[in-house]
């Protein structure tokens, strides 16, 4: 009952408040017409007399402008009158768009001399009325020039409007200086305003050195500076020659060159010529060299008119005295005073005294093309060392219609030495002969970075220790006499699956390496002639051929094939290698003159498990098995038109397939319950969602909740103990 009465009071109050609200809103509208708070006419006057501000345009104003009280600063007009528009309605005849001519259907055009009876007046009459005393439909539909006297006299009709300015735009002044222009632009512009682009160029001093990701620079004999490029495909497969090589970022790219006329373009295409990849420029070893470039011009030693004698002494002095050079030369060459920073926590990278010009100095390197043997791609796809001698440009052989000595691949090997930058750049080329059939030509480019401290016998791991996804699986054959796993020379050619040629034949030369974590499927076509099917010996031969094609060199029967459990397993630790299992490997085959029972597929399954900490799982291979399709009848299928024109003896192709699957068999972490279990009220993990959510989201909300909880708890305690308190 008390609750009901309380509610009724509440309801009554609400009704009263609502009525009051409606009344007061009416009063407010009336008062708005009688008591304007500001005098905007003076505001515009203020604006015209205000001085231009010197506020920097990069700082947007802290408070939004209120146009009536604080108009943005504008400048006074130096001369000439300007039209003050103020509170007048302008644009009363919007359709009069031709001077000295009566615009068609424009009834308000003065050039028509009032002869508008044939017109359909299409101008929209603009009626400024903020009184809300007329229904809006009148303004939309009435074309009549007669004034409308209909008054709806609604609840919100304003009878006396003594604040007419609210119906008119403020009329800002011209902007005559750039700072207030920028201020307007920042105040009123939105993100779609198009700003001048401002990406700063890197600034280099004598103390600079290449960092990982910096572009590597080159200089040309005419002292022009460029960037070391490595072509790459971008939006299409065609090579983009402007792709910059970054310091310490290895790249491996592949892109195509489209040539239409081989005979003419063979010798003129720069990308076919090995010289364009090393000749005619030098590599800048350290970006400290550009401490000498000020405002795009080189200011080296040559600009110093009379080198002081101290300079000559420091050229033979060790690097530690380089700091003496700068003040000495600064006395004679004013530009260099701005170059050298005052703080010298470490010696500068560049010995100023040794630089005579930007191209020819100790900090530029020629690309070394003679230390590594160049390779030639033969017509059968193999690589051999090219005959020794100079690198020659492409030549066109008219007889065989071949462009010879074309660059197929460029390999850059850059040797680095910490902050000293690049110490050596080597290039190795792969050349080939190009005919019209091998166009468009696919070129490969790579750049690798070595450290000067690297030893010569480097090798790559497939993980340390757990396998990394996409790395080749380490594979080898156990040498029983030496008890060492013999690894293949190229780790990517160890554990492989078959690759089909475009015609579907099983390729024996080029096989696909199995990479960790990548499921694969491949296969090829085995061609069988029905005429040769005459007994189980033939079937046996075919089965052997199929297995040879699929397994390749990985044939597991002699049980000496092993796979490393970890990506960094050493070849000598035999215990860390697992042998490859083979299940149900077909050994024989039966058949008759029309069919053979053949196993047509090999499936490699790799079981791996994550070991180590849950936060840092390391993949470990625990087993590899070859699984074979069960033998099935392979019948020469000859049906329909294909067989009718004596094709019955033709070769028929059957698909054999090979798959690789990786199966994660990670064992879950074992859980251990310590104490004897007490009763735990199990609730779903989102049962206390709002408390937990806010607790993790914002501490202030949690604080508020905590406060509320405390108050609630106190109140509940008080009420429950009321009786005992009173008695």
């Amino acid at each position: 009952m008390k609750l009901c009465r309380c509610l009724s009071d509440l309801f009554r109050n609400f009704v009263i408040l609502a009525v009051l609200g409606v009344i007061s809103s009416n009063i407010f509208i009336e008062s708005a017409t009688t008591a304007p708070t500001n005098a905007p006419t003076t505001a515009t006057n203020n604006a015209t007399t205000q001085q231009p501000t010197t506020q920097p345009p990069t700082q947007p104003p802290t408070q939004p402008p209120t146009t009536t009280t604080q108009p943005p600063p504008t400048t006074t007009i130096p001369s000439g009158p300007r039209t003050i528009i103020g509170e007048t309605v302008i644009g009363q005849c919007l359709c009069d768009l031709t001077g000295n001519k009566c615009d068609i259907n424009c009834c308000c055009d003065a050039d028509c001399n009032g002869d508008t009876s044939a017109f359909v007046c299409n101008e929209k009459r603009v009626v400024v009325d903020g009184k809300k005393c007329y229904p809006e439909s009148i303004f939309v539909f009435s074309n009549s020039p007669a004034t409308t006297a209909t008054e709806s006299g609604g609840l919100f009709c304003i009878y006396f409007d003594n604040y007419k300015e609210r119906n008119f735009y403020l009329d800002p002044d011209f902007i005559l200086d750039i700072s207030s222009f920028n201020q307007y632009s920042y105040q009123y512009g939105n993100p779609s305003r198009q700003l001048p682009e401002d990406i700063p160029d890197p600034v280099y001093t004598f103390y600079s050195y290449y960092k990982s990701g910096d572009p590597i620079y080159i200089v040309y004999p005419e002292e022009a500076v460029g960037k070391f490029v490595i072509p790459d495909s971008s939006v299409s497969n065609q090579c983009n020659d402007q792709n910059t090589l970054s310091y310490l970022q290895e790249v491996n790219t592949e892109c195509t060159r489209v040539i239409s006329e081989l005979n003419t373009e063979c010798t003129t295409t720069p990308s076919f010529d090995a010289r364009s990849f090393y000749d005619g420029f030098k590599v800048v070893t350290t970006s400290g060299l550009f401490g000498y470039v000020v405002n795009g011009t080189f200011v080296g030693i040559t600009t110093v008119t009379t080198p002081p004698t101290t300079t000559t002494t420091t050229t033979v002095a060790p690097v530690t005295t380089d700091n003496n050079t700068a003040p000495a030369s600064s006395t004679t060459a004013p530009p260099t005073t701005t170059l050298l920073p005052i703080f010298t926590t470490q010696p500068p990278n560049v010995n100023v005294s040794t630089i005579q010009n930007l191209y020819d100095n100790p900090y530029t390197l020629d690309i070394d093309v003679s230390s590594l043997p160049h390779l030639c791609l033969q017509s059968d796809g193999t690589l051999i060392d090219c005959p020794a001698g100079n690198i020659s440009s492409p030549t066109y052989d008219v007889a065989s219609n071949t462009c010879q000595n074309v660059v197929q691949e460029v390999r850059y090997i850059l040797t680095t030495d910490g902050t000293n930058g690049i110490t050596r750049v080597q290039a190795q080329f792969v050349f080939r002969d190009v005919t019209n059939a091998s166009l468009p030509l696919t070129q490969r480019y790579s750049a690798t970075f070595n450290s000067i401290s690297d030893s010569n016998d480097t090798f790559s791991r497939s993980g340390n220790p757990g396998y990394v996804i996409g790395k080749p699986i380490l594979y080898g054959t156990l040498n029983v006499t030496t008890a060492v796993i013999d690894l293949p020379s190229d780790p990517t050619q160890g554990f492989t699956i078959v690759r089909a040629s475009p015609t579907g034949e099983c390729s024996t030369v080029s096989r696909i390496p199995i990479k960790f974590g990548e499921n694969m499927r491949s296969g090829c076509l085995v061609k069988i002639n029905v005429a040769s099917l005459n007994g189980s010996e033939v079937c046996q031969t075919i089965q052997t051929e199929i297995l040879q094609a699929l397994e390749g060199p990985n044939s597991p029967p002699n049980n000496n094939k092993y796979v490393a459990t970890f990506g960094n397993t050493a070849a000598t630790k035999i215990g860390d290698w697992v042998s490859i299992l083979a299940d149900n490997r077909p050994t024989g085959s039966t058949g008759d003159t029309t069919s053979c029972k053949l196993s047509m597929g090999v499936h490699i399954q790799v079981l791996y498990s994550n070991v180590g900490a849950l936060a840092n799982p390391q993949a470990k291979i625990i087993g590899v098995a070859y699984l074979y399709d069960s033998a099935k009848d392979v019948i020469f299928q000859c049906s329909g038109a294909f067989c009718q024109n004596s094709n019955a003896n033709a070769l028929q192709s059957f698909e054999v397939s090979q798959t690789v699957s990786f199966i994660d068999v990670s064992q879950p972490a074992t859980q251990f319950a310590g104490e004897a279990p007490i009763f735990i009220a199990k609730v779903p993990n989102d049962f206390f969602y709002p408390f937990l959510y806010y607790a993790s989201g914002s501490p202030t909300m949690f604080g508020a909740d905590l406060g509320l909880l405390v108050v609630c708890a106190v109140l509940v305690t008080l009420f429950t103990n009321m009786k005992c308190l009173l008695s």
Partner: protein
Amino acid sequence: MAVYEVFSHPELRRYRTHLCSKASLLLVLILFLTFIPPLFIVYRSYGFWKKTDTYREYPTIHFKNELLMVAELEGEGNYVTYSTFQRYNALEQSHIRIPLIVSREEDVNGDGKPDNLIFTMELPLLDTENIYGIRLILLFDYQLAQFSTLTMEGMAYISHDNPKSGARYDVVGELRFSQKEPLGHRGVESRYNTSIIDSTSIYAEDYNFPNIFKNYVARNFTTYLNAPYTVWSTGRGADQPFVLSATINYPEQLFDYTPGFWYLIKWGWVQYVSVLLLFLFIFDRIKVFIYQNQLVTTIVDKPWKQELKLN
């Protein structure tokens, strides 16, 4: 000394009458009017019984390593095709071109469910061949566990045709679930855990794309590939394969389901009681007015009279 209210509490006034009287009748009528109309109001304003509701779940999706591919070559009717189904490959013997298929499913957030599929298919081509279009069906295993235990086979369809011969086609998208009816709130739903492509069939029509699609769309639960971001690159070099690369995301999704009994009752109760409270209040005021002013005759028991009697 001003007097102020220290404490107050209400007192109970009792109205007594016979069973067969106007007052009793009125009470029954008011009771009826109090409890029944809120039910109608709640029902007529719709949504009284929440017949369907939504929930979010990460589906468990696995690429089944099964596909059916057709690549359109230059020239009328020239194509090469491949599938992981031996019967189909035997049917299309003269057009079979065996690609290299590499796929990998990543679990980025470590919840034990794959989050995306990285799929690459390298299709070897002769230098005289040019690819102008590709159609590819990828098959997925799709599982839900939160309410209804759903297991089904889903499909992603990649299709593109281009007037320029291609070197590479990149597809980036996500595999989305589409349902024609709400899922159940419990039970096992394995109606559609059947093959979309009948790989045991030796009939060409079973591998016809329109037939596959017709049968697939007839299912109540399907998946589709939402991939607006695709790039067709041209300029294939000599001896290079055509590469199709697809990155397919498995997103968390909103599912419609039919809620269970207690869920319906809970939300029905919440809606009914909120209206009932208003009615209880109004009719309580009416009852007070009627009985206080003796519009129907009752015997009034006033508490202070009893106290007087006691004294």
